[in-house]
């Protein structure tokens, strides 16, 4: 990862300017690349709708983001397909989802990336807790940074017992992005 070093003792005036240009260009490319990944996921990815559970309104709004708790965040351990016993805390797992109305439904939880059947999608998650019949997962989709001025409205909607529908883009190459919230 290291850039080749210029000759030692080079005087300050002949700094290797081309290397700095390259370095800055690489950094700019990284930032633009991250943004491009998001737009590409919108364009070529599939849209998955996930249902959230009602959250305590006092706990919901943390500064400029809302905390989201999905139906598929707490799964029955009967959905575990292995290999091996229930995954310990921190272990990555893949949740296979199938389309349904209004939100997508879990088919199974796998310890290695499964090959989804037509129409299905596998979402990567991390095990939070697993004990007894419980399998609590974290998808990295639990925070939604709010566009200006939508906080209050979302807060009341999310606290509503019917919950929210969250639109998630899943790209074929694995990029996952929370695209927006749908108020019902």
């Amino acid at each position: 990862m290291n850039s080749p070093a210029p000759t030692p003792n080079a005087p300050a005036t002949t700094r290797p300017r081309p290397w700095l240009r390259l370095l800055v260009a690489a950094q700019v490319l990284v930032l633009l690349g991250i943004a491009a990944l998001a737009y590409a996921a919108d364009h070529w990815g599939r849209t998955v709708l996930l249902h959230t559970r009602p959250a305590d309104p006092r706990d919901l709004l943390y500064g400029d983001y809302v905390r989201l708790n999905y139906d598929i965040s707490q799964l029955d351990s009967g959905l575990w397909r292995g290999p091996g016993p229930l995954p310990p805390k921190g272990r990555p797992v893949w949740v296979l989802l199938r389309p349904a109305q209004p939100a997508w439904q879990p088919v199974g939880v796998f310890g290695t990336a499964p090959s989804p059947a037509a129409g299905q999608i596998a979402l990567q998650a991390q095990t939070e807790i697993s004990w007894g019949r419980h399998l609590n997962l974290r998808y990295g989709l639990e925070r939604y940074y709010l566009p200006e001025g939508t906080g209050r409205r979302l807060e009341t909607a999310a606290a509503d017992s019917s919950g929210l529908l969250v639109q998630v883009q899943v790209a074929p190459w694995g990029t996952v992005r929370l695209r927006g919230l749908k108020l019902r």
Partner: protein
Amino acid sequence: MSRKLIETDGPAWVQEGLITEAQRQLLLRRYPVEEQTIGLLPLLGGLLLGLGILSLVAANWQGLPELVRLALLVFTLVAAHLSGELALRRGQRPLGIGLLSVGLLSFGAGIVLTGQMYHLVSHDARALLLWGGAGLGLTWLYRSRFLYLLTLVIVCLAQAVSTQQFQVYSYAGLAMLLLGLGVYWFRRPDKLLAWSFSLGWLAHMGLLLDHYHLPFVWLIPLLGLLYAAADWLPTRSLAAPVQVLPLAAGWLVAASVAVNGEQLAMVRELREGGTIYPLALLGLALLSAAGKWRQGSRPSLADWLIFLPLFYLPMNPLTFIVQLLVLYAFAGAVLWRGYHAQWRPEVNAGTVLFVLASALAYFRLTWAFFDKSLFFIVGGVLLLALSWWLRRRNERVLAAAAHEQAVTSAPHE
């Protein structure tokens, strides 16, 4: 020499006949008054302006369109780097390095904010490693210790996030530390870099052992690797700073074996592990010995005494006494080397090690038999007496050595 010293002490030197008044004036002219106060004003103004813009942007961040936000991030990144380069070209090194650091930090902030803005999910620490990579590039390009430290912190942060949040030990992060920052330190050995690199190495190795649930005593060979590598530096004075941490860890293990070896979990774990541990240590000792031979610092081979894995012996009183003797021998070796080289820090370290070994010996041998108040009183008196005696001896030896040097070097003047 600073101008201040010439200003305050100069007249006395003239009076004592060390220099003439004309020479004093010449010296004063050689160190002109630096115009620091004037240089500070634009810096302060720039800082205020920057903070103002930053808070204005931060307050309206969520309201700005995505592409405008992205453009702002890119602009900050490019502007900070280019202005840093410009300042360096004008010979304003602190300002230049400061601006480049702002550029590096804004890259990290840009990664986080862009990810946040598009609500992207990440399952690894790749983005943080890219940030570390940019830091490495800047460090190598501008040869700056400050950028080195900043990069070290970023690389350690990336490893911590990778192991703690994503449960993956990042070998890319380790390679960055070793090949980027390690090689940099090796090629430009420096006290500050040595210290900080050894701390970074400790952090990476600690996270490695934690991640794979290995016994923590494996830190000894892993830090020993650093120790042995330092022996391949051109001189021992360059190696010493980076070897302090491995030696301290070795000493702590040896001391805990001496005090309560029979109750240490690591003893059991290591014995179950078989012969890999002693073999690894042996290999490192040989590597280190070869380096010391080349470096011409063979007496420091005695350092390896402290790494002796005595916990493979049966845990009985005889072993504890042997371990205590090893601690004494190590302290003695450090003291002897210090006297020999007339190097005060080493003499002081040897003294402290000697007193600590005595404290451990006293604790080990008398704790069970003495009345507790008697234990503390006798122990305190013993240690005070010992440290007083050692200090007096050190002063005498060092003073005698200084005198001898003065006498032998006198005829040459």
